[in-house]
């Protein structure tokens, strides 16, 4: 039985629900994982500036539980929704007080994190570790419907913050420990009925496909972006399986470690671009495909940018998936170069081997799920990067199922790194500690960059040069900050440890 745990007071705040307009998000909302469809994680609010950011004060704190918040909260009609595995809370965005809490029953699927909820009209959507998609009444958390999106007994689990376009709720899953096809399912937002399934690798029960080389995997576990003019959804796909054993899956293994462009009405593939052809290092290309309209070499372009886990920064023409730029943004030693179509060329000498190879990046990657930000004014793409090394092993005894190999991180250094999108040059590089950072990035039109370091400091940097202007220790940030204007006040909200923190400028004295 799926149960509603508690209903608090405060219905009055949400009684007059406005329309949730995903195409035109209002200043007092943050409607998707990214805030809008572009994935730029950028706001143009004017209140908080480099001059006054030092006056930021904590307005409220909401303790969500013991688990690390890895989710981006969403905000609609004055209510924030924040998740950890099996749990979602509705929180009054003015006060930080709980309105309701829904908990999924205990289950034995992986509970490694959750990326957030999605909203459409008056319904909030939650994916669960055991691969249910649950539609909840945004007002009170009552279950409207509950559907299974994949078979968790086969080894699928879900951490996904769904992407909603029209009445399509697009839901991804994970599943690296079993040889499972990558699937993105579109579900009718009103009824829960399946509309289409896009498979990044051939579905179970189909014949070995010569194109994919027998690879499974390519899971779409992060939230995509959407271009309404092209009517295309852009989603990153994960690594192939078996993970480290590439011998049994010859060729490039499309569409694993790729960016795919899909028609949201049909699930049909418009184009695909492989960030890591024939991956053998677990470098999902699930990082945010950021959509930017700007000049590239003097020509106006509709672009897609991704700083990928494999250490390469890609700029594509998103109308057709053609490469405009491919360049490393972190330490990389696994590629022999870049081919004429902008794909890195894997060096077979760095495939996992019996005696082991020293590879950069390590498995956790040059970046990962933590979202980056694009600042239009400076043209900087700002990402939490890692220069790291790992050792990778594969021998035939490791088999051809699931992980099929062994790898160990050796060491890493974490940075916030600002990339000039037209050249790939690193404009500034701000050390944030040992290992890898986990905080995402938010930029503002006033020239501020919000993110966090490895040690749990939330920081505001000057976007132009990366200088620190403000910081406060709130514990590990496993997510990206968000910002909105409510009742005329600009808020910055972020999860640190198991709590959600809201900041705004202190009262004028």
């Amino acid at each position, binding site marked *: 039985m799926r149960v509603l745990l508690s209903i608090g007071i405060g219905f009055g705040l949400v009684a007059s629900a406005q329309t949730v307009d995903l195409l035109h998000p209002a200043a007092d909302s943050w409607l998707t994982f990214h805030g809008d469809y572009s994935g730029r994680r950028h706001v143009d609010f004017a209140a908080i500036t480099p001059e006054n950011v030092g006056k930021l004060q904590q307005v409220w704190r909401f303790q969500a539980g*013991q688990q*690390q918040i890895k989710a981006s909260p969403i905000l609609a009609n004055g209510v924030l929704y924040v998740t950890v595995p099996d749990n979602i809370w509705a929180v009054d965005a003015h006060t930080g007080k709980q309105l309701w809490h829904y908990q999924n029953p205990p289950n*034995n*699927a*992986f*509970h490694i994190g959750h990326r957030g909820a999605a909203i459409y009209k008056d319904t909030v959507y939650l994916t669960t*570790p055991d691969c249910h998609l649950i539609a909840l009444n945004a007002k009170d958390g009552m279950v409207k419907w509950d559907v299974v999106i994949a078979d968790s007994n086969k080894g699928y689990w879900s951490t996904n913050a769904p992407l909603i376009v029209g009445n399509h709720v697009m839901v991804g899953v994970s599943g690296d*420990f079993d040889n499972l096809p990558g699937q993105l399912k579109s579900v009718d937002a009103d009824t829960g009925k399946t509309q289409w399934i896009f498979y990044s690798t051939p579905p179970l029960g189909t014949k070995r496909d010569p194109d994919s080389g027998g690879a499974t995997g390519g899971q779409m576990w992060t939230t995509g972006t959407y271009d309404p003019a092209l009517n295309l959804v852009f989603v990153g796909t994960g690594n192939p399986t078996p993970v480290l054993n590439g011998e049994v899956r010859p060729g490039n293994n499309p569409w694993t470690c790729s960016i795919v462009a899909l028609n949201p009405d049909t699930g049909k593939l418009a184009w695909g671009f492989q960030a890591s052809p024939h991956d053998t290092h*677990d470098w999902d290309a699930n990082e945010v495909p950021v959509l930017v309209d700007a000049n590239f070499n003097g020509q106006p372009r509709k672009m897609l940018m991704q700083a990928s886990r494999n250490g390469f920064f890609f700029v594509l023409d998103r109308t057709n998936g053609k490469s405009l730029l491919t360049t*490393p943004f*972190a*330490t*990389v*030693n696994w590629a022999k170069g870049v081919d004429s179509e902008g794909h890195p060329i894997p060096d077979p*000498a760095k495939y996992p081997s019996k005696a*082991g190879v*020293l590879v*950069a990046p*390590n*498995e*956790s990657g040059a970046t990962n799920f933590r979202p980056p930000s694009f600042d239009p004014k400076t043209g900087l793409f700002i990402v939490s990067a890692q*220069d*790291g*090394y790992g*050792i990778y*092993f594969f021998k035939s*005894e*490791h088999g051809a199922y699931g*992980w*099929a*190999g*062994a790898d*160990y*991180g*050796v*060491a*890493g*250094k974490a*940075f916030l790194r600002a990339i000039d999108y037209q050249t790939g*040059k*690193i*404009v*500034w*590089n701000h*050390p944030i*500690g*040992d*290992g*890898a950072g986990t905080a995402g990035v938010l930029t503002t039109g006033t020239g501020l960059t919000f993110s966090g*370091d*490895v*040690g*749990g*400091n939330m*920081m505001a940097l000057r976007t132009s*040069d*990366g*200088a*620190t202007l403000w*910081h406060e220790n709130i514990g590990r940030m496993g997510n990206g900050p968000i910002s909105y204007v409510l009742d005329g006040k600009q808020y910055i909200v972020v999860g640190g440890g198991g709590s959600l923190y809201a900041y705004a400028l202190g009262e004028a004295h």
Partner: protein
Amino acid sequence: MKHTIWMSAAALIAAGLVIAQAPPVPGNSQTQGQNKGQNKGTAKGAPRGPAQSPASRPGPQTVTPQAYPAAQIQAGELRFTSQCGFCHGRDAAGGETGPDLTRSKLVAEDTRGDKIAPVLKAGRPDQGMPSFTLSDADVNAIVAFIHDQKTKSEALGGGRRAVDASDLAVGDAQAGRRYFNGAGGCSACHSATGDLAGIATRYQGLALLQRMLYPTAGRPAPARPKVTVTLPSGQTAAGSLASEDEFAIVVLDSSGGRQTYEKTAVKFKIDDPMSAHFDQLGKYTDTDMHDVFAYLDTLK
């Protein structure tokens, strides 16, 4: 075969870039997915030679055999899979970042949770393992499941993520010695007859390789960065660096006292010997790495 790092962050930065703040931060390793657990049990006591299939080599044997009720093991499986399985594998034989627990020395030496429970409760933040808030019943169930998996794995043989000492034995110890004393620059800080004497008796196989690349714990203790602090009064304080972030340093003095200094309030100088290990990661070819490993493996 020689393979060089053809693009490094250092090179990117050298190409006319600005480094904004602070030196690299050692010691403060609350990392996720980093410094993954050492598969210490893998090679311990493993006989050498090609006659035996490496995968058939057992991990360390359970010291105190122990049995658990089926219901407890089943309850433990539910808890283990959901909370631990992603990193350690559903079968406890290794997952996305964590080691194979069925070959773990700590598990082999555990009796009814006396070693495992404290690790669950405190975590291993330096190796990316979080702490867990669990009831005693849940902890006991997880312990039961891990021991049961170890028993099953011993019966089956093998190990999904096993790296055996013989797998690593491809290097040239003589070439490794030359690299150690020459191009690698290892002898600037280390000596085969000094700090590294007998290192191959204390560490074998993967554990020795990991220690060689980037030591994080154990004997000899990895050198902590040395730090000298000059206070506004002109008074100086010296010690080793316990932790550091962009804003503060924590210094351990010789008597074990901890002192936190705001970076803006003092002058300080950090000498971090571990930075040479990190830099070396960008210099080793795989051949160098295996050669130096082969050399260290002779220091018994």
